[in-house]
C-alpha cells in the first residue's frame, strides 16, 4: 500500500520541484515514528515516471556500512534515473554515515538519494549541511480518520479514544494490534490505581511495558505515556500531564535506559498524587 495519507502540501512542493528540474540529488525527510516518510522515495520515483522519464526505484535493505557502500558503487554505474531510498537512519553506524559523505559531495548524475530519519540530531552535521531537509506535516484528525476508515472500517467508533494520543498512522496500527479497548482499559486502570497500590505493586506495572525491543507483546512506552497524558487531560490532572511530558521528551535521548526512566516516572507520579497535586 504505497498510497500516502496526508502530506499534500509537502508532496505538492516536491512535485513542483521535480517539474522545474530542481529536486535535490540528496534529501532528508524528517518525521515522527509511525508516519509515512518511508513512502516518499517511492512517490518521487512514481511521479518522475508519470512525467515520461524512465525511472527506477531501489531501497536499501538495511543501514549497514556494506549495504551503503554497495548502493554508492551501484549508483555511479546506473544508466537510468534511479531513486535510492535509505530508510530509518537513526541507528546508522558512524562508519556508514561517513561512507554516505562521498555521495553527498559528488552525487552521480543519474541518482537521487532519499533518506528518512526521526531525529535530525542522529545524523552527522556534515551530512545535514549537504542535504535538502524536508519536515513532514502533522496529520490532521481528518487524515487519521480517513486512514482508520480505510484500514479498519469496522472500528470507526474507536476514533475518539485514538485521537487523544495517536499522531501517526503507525501509532494507530500499533494500538489496533494491542486491541483498542484492552489498551484503553489498561491505561484507565493505571490512572485509577497508581497511587492506591503499594510501592512494590506499582513497580510491577513495568512488566507490561516494552522496555527492550525484544519485548514485542508489551505496550510501547511512548504510546503508553501519550495515552496516560490523554486520559489525565480528560480528568483534568494537569500536573501529571506536565510531569509525563518531561519524561516523554527524555525518551528522545539515544540509548537511554527505558526501564530506569519508567521507574523514575512511577516514583514521581505517585509522589505528585500523594501530595494531592494531581
Amino acid at each position: 500500500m504505497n498510497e500516502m495519507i496526508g502530506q499534500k502540501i509537502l508532496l505538492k512542493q516536491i512535485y513542483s520541484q521535480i517539474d522545474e528540474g530542481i529536486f535535490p540529488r540528496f534529501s532528508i525527510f524528517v518525521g515522527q515514528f509511525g508516519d509515512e516518510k518511508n513512502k516518499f522515495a517511492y512517490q518521487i520515483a512514481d511521479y518522475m515516471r508519470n512525467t515520461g522519464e524512465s525511472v527506477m526505484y531501489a531501497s536499501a535493505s538495511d543501514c549497514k556500512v556494506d549495504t551503503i557502500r554497495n548502493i554508492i558503487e551501484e549508483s555511479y554505474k546506473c544508466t537510468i534515473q534511479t531513486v535510492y531510498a535509505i530508510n530509518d537512519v537513526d541507528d546508522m553506524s558512524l562508519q556508514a554515515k561517513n561512507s554516505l559523505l562521498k555521495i553527498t559531495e559528488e552525487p552521480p548524475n543519474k541518482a537521487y538519494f532519499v533518506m528518512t530519519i526521526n531525529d535530525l540530531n542522529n545524523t552527522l552535521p556534515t551530512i545535514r549541511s549537504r542535504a535538502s531537509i524536508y519536515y513532514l506535516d502533522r496529520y490532521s484528525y481528518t487524515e487519521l480518520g480517513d486512514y482508520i476508515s480505510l484500514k479498519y472500517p469496522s472500528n470507526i467508533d474507536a476514533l475518539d479514544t485514538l485521537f487523544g494520543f495517536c499522531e501517526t498512522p503507525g501509532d494507530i496500527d500499533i494500538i489496533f494490534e494491542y486491541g483498542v479497548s484492552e489498551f484503553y482499559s489498561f491505561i484507565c486502570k493505571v490512572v485509577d490505581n497508581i497511587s492506591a497500590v503499594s510501592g512494590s505493586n506499582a513497580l510491577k506495572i513495568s512488566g507490561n511495558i516494552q522496555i527492550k525491543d525484544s519485548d514485542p507483546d508489551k505496550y510501547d512506552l511512548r504510546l503508553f505515556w501519550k495515552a496516560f497524558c490523554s486520559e489525565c487531560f480528560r480528568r483534568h490532572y494537569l500536573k501529571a500531564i506536565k510531569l509525563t511530558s518531561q519524561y516523554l521528551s527524555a525518551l528522545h535521548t539515544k540509548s537511554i535506559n527505558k526501564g530506569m526512566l519508567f521507574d523514575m516516572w512511577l516514583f514521581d507520579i505517585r509522589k505528585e498524587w500523594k501530595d494531592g497535586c494531581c
Partner: protein
Amino acid sequence: MDVVEIKNHIQTKSLNSFYILTGVEWQVQKIYINMIAQASGKELKYIDSISDVYSKLGSKSFINKTYVYVMRDDKELVQNEKLQSRLESIIGQNILILLLTSPDKRTKFYKTYKDVICDFEPLKPAVLAKYIDKEISLSNENTDKLMQICEYDYGRCLLEIDKIKQYRLGYGEKEIFDNDAFMMLLKEGTIYQPPKDAIFDFIDAVLDRKVNLAYKLYHECLGVGEAVMVMLTVLYNNAKALLQVQSCKSADIGKSTGLTSFQIFGAKKHLNTYKDGELVYIMRLCQRCQQGIVTGAMDEDNVMEYILCQIL
C-alpha cells in the same frame, strides 16, 4: 615438527640449521633454545633482524665464529621470499631460530615452513606441576594453587617461585619452608592474584554496606574490564528488587512483585540494610548517572566512584 623431535635433535646432536618456534610457553622455548646452543657448542646471540647479521652470514673467513642466532617476529625474513629461498645457502654452520608470536597460518611463509615450525602449546597441568617441582618443593595442594593463580603460565610460575626463593633467602632458608613462605606471600598479596569476575560480589557488598569490601571488589571488577554501564544496571536492578521485597506487605511476594524466587532469595539477604527511601535514592542516582553518561554530561570513568561515595 613437535617438541619431542627438537628434543631428539638435541639429544642426538643432529640439529637443523633453521627452527621456527611459536606458542605461548616462552619460558619453555627459552629452555630449548639454551639446550640447542649447548648441544651445538655455539654461542647464543639475540638479534632484532636477520639483516643485522646478513653480511656476516654470507662472508667467508678463516676465523668466522658460528652462533645460534635468535630473533623474534622478523618481518623481513617472513615477507622476503628471495631471502627465504637463499636462507639455506647463507646460514652456513650457524643456527637460526625464529620466534613467532602470532603466526598467520594463511601466509605463504607458514605453508612453506610448516614442517619446521614447532608450536609450544600451554603445558598440561601434570607436566607443569613437574616443572614446578624441579624448582621448589611445594605440597600438591599448594602446587595446584600456584598453577591456578598463575593461570597455568610457566613463565609466571617461575616469577612467583623466584619471589618465594628470595623471601626464603631473606628470612633464612632454615627458618622457613617453601610451603610456609608461599602461604605468607599469598596472604600478604605479594604473589599476584589476577582479578576475578566479581560484579555480583561487588553489588552484594554495596547492598550490605561493607565499604572496604565494596571498594576492593570494585577495583577487581575494573581489573577484569567490567563495563561501568553493566555495574550500574546490575546495582539498579538489585536495589529495585530489594525495594520491592522489603516494602511488600503481602504474604505472596512473588505474586505481588512479579519477581522470580531466585530474585526474592537474593534480595532477602540484604533486608533492612538500607531504608526504602535510601533504596529509591540509589535507583534515582543510577538512573541519573545512566542518562548523564549517554548524554555526555557525566564521565563514565568517574560515575561508579561517585555513586559509591553517595550511598556507602
